[in-house]
């Protein structure tokens, strides 16, 4: 089972009908996640990366496309049609711990909910023990049990959110920008904790973020999203040494860094132009056409397809099509 894909996503689409037309939040995304890896999805705001996560967890039902879990369970029908035992397998940690924890419940009550739903503890004393165990795991003391989310700092709230996600022994965890609202020193602690849990509990992560420097340090593979589509998928070391898609190059050259060694790693300064267009009623052709420094005439007409340039390195750009 070791090298199998834990999750396969095939031509996943999610359209929303809005007043002005059709909003294509996710438009044909295909990737697979191997057992035990950290797969990272990177993109600007509005690129659809969170929507992908919500479809995997089941909040949204995909418009079309398939999500296959462990190569046999089709989970693309939304949460209501998902078998109960699969619900506990896949868990999520949200971006803003301030809004994902119920302000009217104390930490104990928050942590009890998933344990009760999935019947992990039969008696009240077992339940208490489990909550204490979880708190200890995320390095919070026992007196946090009766505190309310508003009394905690950002890092502590995120620890509770992580404890809640891990309370039902999942094997697959979606991390939706878990540290983007935290300071770097707190971020380091949370990330180290997550990496440690991955080893102990044998987890697989999808790590959604906009911070490429963070991805460089923790992920094994990375997918870059732009306007609901994936531009490039590559193993991390390959990706940072040889970025192929023009958008990826812009993204890499825009990262502010703190040392000369890092400066040398960035692709030559490419000026970024324009902004991410509205995903409503997109014109035909490549979605990056309006901002691309290397655009050709064909890009305005033909939407490029995913091409495998090297083993595991996939790019969607007309520059590389034959």
């Amino acid at each position: 089972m070791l090298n199998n894909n834990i999750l396969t996503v095939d031509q996943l689409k999610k359209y929303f009908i809005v007043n002005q037309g059709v909003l294509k939040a996710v438009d044909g995304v295909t990737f697979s996640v191997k057992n035990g890896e950290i797969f990272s999805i990177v993109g600007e705001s509005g690129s659809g990366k969170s929507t992908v996560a919500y479809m995997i967890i089941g909040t949204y039902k995909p418009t079309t496309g398939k999500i296959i879990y462990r190569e046999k369970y089709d989970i693309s029908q939304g949460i209501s049609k998902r078998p109960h035992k699969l619900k506990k397998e896949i868990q999520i940690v949200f971006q803003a711990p301030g809004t994902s924890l119920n302000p009217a419940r104390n930490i104990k009550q928050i942590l009890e909910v998933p344990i009760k739903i999935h019947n992990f503890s039969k008696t009240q004393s077992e339940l208490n023990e489990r909550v204490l165990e979880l708190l200890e795991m995320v390095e919070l003391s026992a007196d946090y049990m009766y505190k309310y989310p508003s009394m905690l700092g950002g890092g502590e709230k995120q620890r509770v959110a992580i404890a809640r996600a891990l309370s039902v022994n999942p094997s697959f965890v979606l991390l939706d920008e878990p540290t983007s609202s935290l300071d770097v020193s707190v971020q380091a602690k949370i990330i180290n904790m997550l990496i440690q849990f991955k080893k102990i509990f044998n987890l697989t992560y999808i790590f959604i973020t906009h911070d490429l420097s963070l991805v460089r340090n923790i992920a094994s593979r990375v997918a870059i999203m732009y306007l609901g589509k994936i531009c490039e998928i590559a193993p991390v070391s390959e990706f940072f040494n040889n970025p192929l898609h023009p958008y990826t190059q812009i993204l890499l050259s825009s990262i502010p860094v703190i040392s000369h060694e890092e400066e040398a790693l960035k692709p030559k300064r490419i000026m970024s132009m324009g902004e991410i267009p509205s995903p409503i009623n997109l014109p035909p052709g490549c979605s990056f056409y309006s901002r691309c420094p290397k655009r050709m005439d064909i890009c305005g007409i033909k939407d490029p397809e995913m091409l495998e340039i090297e083993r595991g390195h996939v790019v969607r750009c007309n520059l590389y099509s034959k």
Partner: protein
Amino acid sequence: MNNPLIEIKDLHVQFRVFEGILKVLDGVNLTLKFGEKVGLVGETSCGKSTIGKAITRLLYIPPAIITRGEILFEGKDILRMSQVEFRQIRKKISIIFQDPTAALNPFFTIGTQVQDVIRFAERSGKNTGKEDIRAHAIQALKEVLIPDPERALKSYPIQLSGGMRQRVCIAMALVRMNKLVIADEPVTSLDVTIQDQILRLLKELVEKYNTSIILISHNLAIVRELTNRVYIMYAGSIVEVAKTKDFFAHPLHPYSQGLLSVIPKLTGGGIGEGIYGSVPKYINPPKGCRFHPRCKQVMPICKEKKAPLFKVSEDHEVACFLFKNGV
């Protein structure tokens, strides 16, 4: 011209809240020369925005209390000035906030808001006509690379994207060719590619107008790209002052070293383990150096006395007893 433009001396700011008194700023000293670009870096709630607000008198008093210290702008103390006097100074200072959505009034068009700023400045008397002001506003929007400024003038903030709104805020800050711009986390809420554009723009315009800038940010990388000199803050006091180049080459204070080690690097190699413990509560801050409970190199004296800024070289000062006798 060698006099500093702004000089903050021993500033103490406290906030009165239900639980007691938050002792936030604890003796901050800061100087800014004409045309200098200074970065003010620290983690959340270290008091960096409080400094920015104190300079522009945007602190609400109460709950804020300025217990000690002075802020000299061109030699005059801002804190002990009358409202009328301050209004003349305020024309020379502008501020860019973190969240452009909250900084712009949703009920007025961009045009109204930009033109109001120009009217308030009343520069040199020649730009007082309605048409002149409008032309000036269009010019300002052009400078921040807003496509079709005529249309932007007629639109409401909600009709623009986040990046465009921040451009408008920058235009409003720079349209008066001020002496000082305080940029309080100007790009934190934006995406990296937009961040890059806005920073480049800010840098160009600041150099063009020879404006001094105080860049307040928690992102060291941004500060490195834009400033000449950097102040590192921790829990309400300045812990290190240095030329930006020197600081990134040789950070001295244990906190600065810890901070730099936890930033994820593009070169890979994993993430540092973080700084032990957490930021102190302002209600009852630790005695002596506020960093001592988290410091690995703590000495007995740190628990008793707060370290002043020791000079280790011409432009490098650090508030730590480890450097009492230089490096």
